[in-house]
């Protein structure tokens, strides 16, 4: 009997409740329909392609009220559902960094330091179950805390996929960002480091929704949530296919021509004034009984310009050894110095004068741009070299060197691939190798068929540039032109 009564009571309550709710709804509805804009449609979210993961792209069709319709839409808000665990993760992250920041100054026993540590302890207690003995030995205590926090952090990290799978329990929608009206895509990209606050986990089923905003932010049209969608890294970047093709073609070209050259077909290389001049310059130095200064520039041993310069240096050193002239090679980089020493030594060997080689021909100055220039300028005015050769990477110092060289009355031969510096060398030096000529010079001097072969390959590549460019021009008038031009579009 009592049971029946209870049922009736519950039923009655339910009815009232739902009735009340409905009335509520009705009111709501009327309000909404009065002002809310039409929501965006077919929201779609997918893993951003060709990336290392940690990024989702959200797209949608514009609301009819965006531009057209009532035109009420001022922009869109993108929301992601994030479980409570994400919040825990953030606070754990904060605590971890705080503890780590505190670790170094355990020695500091000042009042505020103690205050900081106490607040840390509180935060810790709030987050971590396993408690840590608060001892006099702060160091061990802090270390223990860090270990525990880290553990908890990693645990939380592992828990994320499950937490997202739990949608929609125990979590809330989090505003990611706004975009202007008329925009229909948003990239939810985050950091890959879990320790970064912008971290977005991979392999978690995210849910997204989009709000169409109006001037009054309380009024908006809301889409149905879309999901789950996971982000993850790709193993091949399709956006870079053109580069891959270029790699293959160019590699093939080089290998073909190198092998042709190996078979001993003699390949022509146009003479380079700068290089022709080197020999005369060395001769001149010999006549005047003055040394030759060779500057390898500011590049590292890995810079192509420097590598080319090594070859040229080898040639110069050989000639110098034959003529028995003095050679000065001040270097900017220790590694470059060691390589240059070997180059010079071996060239003296080739010239059949190994014992003429002195270890202080090539020496290190300093690894600071202007200190190096200061020193080299000094050397120029003291030794008055008959010839100065600058080959390699040069920056602001190019003109300083070249003008001082002119002041010392030496013949100057320069070559660099730093476009900004070429003008100064052109102006101040007697001969200048412009950009690629520097690389060509090493092949030209070496006269090794292999190097010449690759030079040929470069020329064909340049021809390809011209041909493609022409084709592109014509294609841009044809209806199918974009097909061709797209071949050269490298995305990301």
């Amino acid at each position, binding site marked *: 009997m009592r049971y029946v009564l209870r049922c009736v009571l519950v039923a009655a309550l339910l009815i009232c409740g739902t009735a009340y709710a409905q009335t509520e709804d009705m009111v709501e509805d009327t309000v909404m329909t009065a002002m809310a804009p039409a929501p965006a449609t077919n929201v779609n979210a997918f893993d951003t392609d060709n990336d290392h993961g940690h990024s989702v792209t959200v797209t949608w069709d514009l609301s009819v009220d965006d531009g057209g319709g009532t035109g009420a839409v001022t922009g869109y808000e993108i929301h992601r559902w994030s479980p409570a665990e994400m919040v825990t993760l953030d606070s754990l992250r904060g605590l971890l960094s705080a503890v780590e920041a505190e670790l170094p100054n355990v020695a500091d026993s000042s009042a505020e330091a103690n205050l900081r540590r106490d607040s840390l302890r509180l935060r810790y207690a709030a987050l971590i179950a396993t408690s840590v003995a608060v001892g006099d030995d702060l160091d061990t205590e802090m270390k223990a805390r860090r270990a525990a926090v880290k553990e908890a952090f990693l645990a939380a990290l592992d828990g994320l996929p499950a937490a997202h799978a739990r949608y929609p329990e125990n979590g809330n929608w989090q505003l990611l960002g706004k975009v202007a009206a008329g925009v229909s895509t948003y990239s939810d990209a985050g950091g890959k480091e879990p320790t970064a606050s912008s971290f977005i986990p991979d392999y978690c089923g995210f849910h997204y929704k989009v709000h169409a905003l109006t001037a009054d932010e309380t009024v908006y049209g809301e889409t149905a949530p879309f999901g789950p969608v996971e982000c993850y890294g790709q193993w091949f970047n399709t956006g870079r296919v053109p580069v891959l093709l270029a790699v293959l073609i160019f590699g093939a070209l080089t290998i073909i021509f190198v092998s042709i050259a190996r078979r001993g077909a003699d390949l022509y290389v146009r003479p380079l004034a700068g290089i022709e001049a080197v020999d005369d310059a060395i001769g001149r130095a010999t006549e005047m009984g003055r040394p030759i200064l060779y500057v390898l520039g500011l590049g590292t041993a890995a810079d192509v310009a420097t590598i080319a310069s090594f070859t040229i240096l080898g040639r110069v050193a050989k000639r110098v050894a034959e003529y028995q002239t003095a050679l000065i090679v001040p270097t900017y980089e220790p590694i470059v110095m060691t390589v240059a020493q070997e180059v010079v030594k071996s060239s003296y060997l080739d010239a059949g004068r190994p014992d003429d080689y002195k270890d202080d021909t090539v020496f290190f100055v300093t690894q600071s741009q202007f200190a190096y220039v200061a020193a080299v300028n000094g050397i120029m005015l003291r030794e008055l070299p008959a010839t100065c050769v600058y080959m390699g990477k040069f920056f602001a110092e190019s003109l300083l060197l070249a003008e001082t060289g002119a002041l010392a009355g030496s013949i100057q031969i320069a070559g660099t691939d730093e476009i900004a510096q070429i003008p100064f060398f052109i*102006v101040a030096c007697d001969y200048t190798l412009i950009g690629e000529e520097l690389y060509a010079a090493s092949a030209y001097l070496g006269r090794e068929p292999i190097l010449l072969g690759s*030079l040929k390959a470069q020329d064909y590549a340049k021809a390809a540039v011209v041909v493609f460019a022409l084709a592109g021009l014509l294609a841009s008038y044809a209806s199918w032109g974009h097909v061709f031009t797209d071949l050269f579009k490298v995305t990301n």
Partner: protein
Amino acid sequence: MKNLKWFVLAAVCILFAVSWFAKASGGDGVDNSVLDAFLVTLAAFLTLAIMSFLYQDNPYYKFAEHLFVGVSAAYWMCLGFWSTVVGNLFPRISEGLSNFFLVPYQPGPLNFFFAIPIILGILLLMRLSPKGGWLSRWPLAFIVGTTAGLNFVRYLRSDFVKQISSTFVPLVVDWQGFGHFFSNISLTAGGPLVMMLTNLVIFIGVFCGIVYFFFSKEHTGVFGKASRVGIWILMITFGASFGYTVMGRISLLVGRLTFLFTDWLGIIG
């Protein structure tokens, strides 16, 4: 002549002392501490020492130069040590060291890999030993290899593929038939005619420039002519960019002189 040298030296020393005293005693209106006065005077004299190089090489320049070399080398060394070794390496390899240098220790499962660069680095130092010099090629090979790999793709992308696509400029801008073209032909910068000419010049320029950089073909006949045009265009460019830089360079000198006149002599500003 020798006496002159000593005379100059004495004069410089006296000047230095005077300026130091003047600045310290606030003779220039600003009241610096003795120390600051010394440092500013020092800076000023080093500045002048370097500038004296313009007249000719001299002991003062030599002094400044050698001091500069030493100090700068040390500066970079310290910076490198604190930023890379302390900031980058110790946190990865040793807790003791990172605590000693007050940097947060970052333990990681794969940190032991950092032994490799250390070993390579030590191999690099083998260069100093007469016997093991060849070992120093290993680290070098590592660096050169990685850099080469990087350069290979990077430049192929930026200087080959990208450059091609950026040369795809339509020579004929918004072409609407000859009638339309000739009816409103104009020399305004925005006008179609000028635009076309510009694009044409750019295209021909690129073309001739590339021809100039052809090495495996003799520059004769039409080919030679094209390469001539190429070098002309290069020269025009170099001249222009030289002219551009003049202004910036002068402002550098202005900066230095302002330092001398304001911070040191305090006669302007």
